[in-house]
């Protein structure tokens, strides 16, 4: 997916573990792991808001659009 989740970097910078974040944002550890590993298909605004509030960051700090991957995917989709 062309959207990269930078949760791991943010957790490292803030010195917070995933378990701690899970307790503070009230989202299961399993769901946060899915988000962290980039396996999530979508993210709710409420989840985004809760994470940004705890990590004191902007949505743009958590998510990144990878132009190269998007171009690669478009190329793959174009192939017959």
């Amino acid at each position, binding site marked *: 997916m062309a959207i990269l989740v930078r949760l791991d970097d943010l957790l490292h910078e803030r010195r917070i573990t995933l378990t701690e974040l899970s307790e503070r944002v009230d989202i299961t550890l399993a769901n946060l792991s899915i988000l962290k590993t980039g396996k*999530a298909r979508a993210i709710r605004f409420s989840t985004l808001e809760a994470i940004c509030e705890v990590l004191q960051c902007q949505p743009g700090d958590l998510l990144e659009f990878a132009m190269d991957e998007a171009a690669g995917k478009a190329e793959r989709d174009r192939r017959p």
Partner: protein
Amino acid sequence: MTSRYGTALSASGAALRVLIVLNLLLGLGIFALLAASLVAPEWTMAALGARVDLNPALLTGGRAIMLVGICSVPLAHIVLSRLLAMVETVRHGDPFVGENAVRLNRIAWALLGLEMLHLVAGIVSAAASTRTAPLGIDWSFSVTGWLAILLLFVLARVFAEGARMRDDLEGTV
């Protein structure tokens, strides 16, 4: 309530398994009858109560109806086996999957085939019967079957869309 629901599902699964076996046995029976009509036509048609002496077309008509019957066996098998697979997914608590949408679609196509064969049987019956010596097939046109096919095609599409939405929801954090 849940246990009653589980019992109903188990009963449906068992009934479908029995119907699958009965369908295959019926196919074998019709095949044997067709073979008998080729080996001993007079005896077979007399046993079926068809007056071939009054109407010789009954023999060809009867064989054509048997052939229609044999063709309907694999189609009925598709309907029953796919339905059983769907019941099993409900029993395992995960019916909203893409495979079930495909199964519903196949059931709809198989039912369409069965309705077409039903029409063929009606045409053969009308062509072979005379007033004095009818083929004896109790045939009537039914709109319900065609409506059920239409409903199944629509439901298969709805199911596919529902399964896709559930997949999306499962990946939502």
